[in-house]
């Protein structure tokens, strides 16, 4: 097996790639126009018909799609194939109206797994490898995506899912895992556990790790590489576009190659929506040109990054994106889970009968995210016993956990103690310095 999973595509000339993207885009626009009334309406509102889109140079004529559209269309509103042709559903981690449900035909799954196979191959994976997938399985795309990619490559695949770290390490030793796939924070935790168990990287056979689903820094990369004795590769994706594998890192480790035969990437000004020239920093927008069931045209990821077409030493010609450098909305990624401050507000008001005056404090201690929510107390929440206040904190904590799927430390604070800026409380303090 070679250096590339699909050399023809991954090393295709810019001209040929543009031609391929154009053909696929034209076909995709017609597909959604014919099959998704919501899209047709959006296009009509902008005065665009499929006849106006003759190639990727016309992409900018199409309307944007946002998470709000996805919510409005939940669950079937953007489905472009009959439901009976769909074979899989995956979903984002968030809930309460923020949930995104993505549909896949068998063809879509094949393409997605193919993208993941490219990522594994770029990390040096072949059918000789033992690939331990410790991303969560289930609705979350991490586990199923890499699992499928690993099968395609022909690796011996260990579908471990996350958690039970000592057992993970036991399997790594007993079965000689050479590749692991998980979130970078979990990789760091595995590294610490290896040390705590009195082992060193020499006791393991790991050579590569494919880590994604949350922001991480170069410092963290070096730490993980040292603690596990492997080379760490970044991977990017979002449920809306399929899952991990939209973009992947090669051995150069200087950004992620976007699978342009499946996804057209644009960088826009988040405020004006104007397309920015290559090399500019702005919001990443994806158009999926091969998906059948759930194709997204000009989907605004809200991730801020830069695209680069500088020649890559790996030989791939696929455009590279930097690690996301921030968000153009207020979404936070905490412990790999997407968190919107508005979700917390809604839990406090609707479930916990608490005040909506809160502040989220996120930090990273020993490479793991800490998540604290301070909530201002009011007279109705107060009682004369410590026990009942602690019960209230516990109730809020459980309510948050049931909606977000992650635990937060709840800390009740005095009324008006959360700093206000121009009358509005400062909602988020992120001390992680990820960007």
């Amino acid at each position, binding site marked *: 097996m070679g250096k590339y999973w699909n050399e023809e595509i991954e090393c295709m000339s810019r001209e040929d790639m543009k031609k391929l993207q154009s053909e696929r885009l034209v076909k995709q626009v017609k597909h959604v126009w014919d099959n998704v009334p919501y899209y047709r309406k959006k296009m009509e509102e902008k005065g665009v018909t499929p006849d106006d889109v003759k190639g990727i140079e016309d992409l900018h004529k199409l309307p944007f799609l946002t998470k709000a559209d996805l919510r409005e269309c939940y669950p079937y509103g953007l489905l472009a194939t009959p439901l009976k042709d769909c074979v899989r559903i995956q979903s984002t981690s968030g809930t309460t109206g923020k949930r995104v449900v993505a549909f896949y035909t068998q063809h879509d799954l094949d393409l997605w797994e193919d993208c993941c196979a490219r990522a594994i191959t770029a990390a040096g994976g072949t059918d000789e490898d033992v690939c331990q997938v410790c991303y969560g399985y289930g609705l979350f795309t991490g586990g199923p995506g890499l699992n499928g990619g690993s099968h395609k490559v022909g690796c011996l695949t260990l579908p471990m899912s996350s958690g039970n770290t000592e057992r993970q390490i036991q399997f790594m030793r007993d079965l000689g895992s050479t590749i692991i796939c998980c979130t970078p924070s979990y990789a760091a935790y595995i590294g610490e556990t290896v040390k705590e168990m009195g082992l060193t990287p020499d006791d393991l056979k790991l050579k590569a790790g494919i880590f994604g689903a949350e922001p991480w820094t170069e410092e963290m990369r070096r730490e993980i590489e040292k603690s596990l004795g492997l080379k760490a590769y970044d991977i990017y994706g979002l449920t809306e576009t399929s899952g991990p594998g939209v973009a992947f890192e090669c051995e150069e480790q200087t950004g992620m190659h976007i699978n342009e035969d499946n996804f057209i990437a644009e960088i826009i000004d988040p405020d004006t929506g104007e397309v920015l020239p290559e090399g500019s920093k702005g919001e990443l927008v994806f158009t999926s040109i091969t998906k059948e069931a759930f194709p997204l045209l000009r989907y605004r990821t809200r991730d801020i990054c830069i695209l680069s077409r500088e020649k890559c030493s790996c030989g791939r010609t696929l455009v590279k994106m930097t690690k996301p450098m921030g968000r153009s909305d207020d979404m936070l990624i905490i412990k790999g889970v997407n968190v919107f401050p508005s979700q917390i507000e809604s839990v406090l008001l609707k479930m916990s009968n608490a005040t909506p005056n809160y502040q989220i404090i996120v930090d990273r201690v020993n490479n793991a995210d800490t998540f604290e929510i301070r909530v201002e*107390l*009011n*007279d109705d*929440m*107060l*009682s*004369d*016993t*410590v026990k009942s*206040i*602690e019960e209230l904190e516990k109730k809020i904590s459980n309510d948050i956990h049931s909606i977000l799927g992650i635990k937060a430390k709840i*800390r*009740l*604070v*005095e*009324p*008006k*103690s959360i700093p206000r800026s121009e009358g509005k409380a400062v909602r988020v303090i992120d001390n992680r310095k990820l960007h």
Partner: protein
Amino acid sequence: MTVKQLSVFIENRPGRLSAVTRILGDAQVNIRAMSLADTKDFGILRLIVDDCEKAAATLKENGFSVTATQVLAVKINDRPGGLADAMKALYDDNISVEYMYSAFINTEDNTAYLILRVENVSSAQVALSDAGFFLTSQEELSGI
């Protein structure tokens, strides 16, 4: 007969207790008894004061969270076993105490005052009265 106790939520950071007591002092409110229940992150300051309404209003104006609870102020004899007698009266009637703290001692008639928080206030009142204990009213407390 019950008295009103104010509970004030106080975060564990320097200067908070000082702020509460200063605010009450400036408002000419006299504290008759108090106890502080504390945890790692916060405390609840429980107060018996001579003017409940004024104290609560002033604290709220200053941004504190305040709640009022009915508690019992029991007069007991200031002698060994005095408290034990009161506890026995409650125990005999199967009444559990949530918390309690001592108020002040009256040296003139050798009595002490005890603030009691129980789950069932009315049955505690009956139990204590039947056992011969005197329960102080709000007015009496303010006058002491």
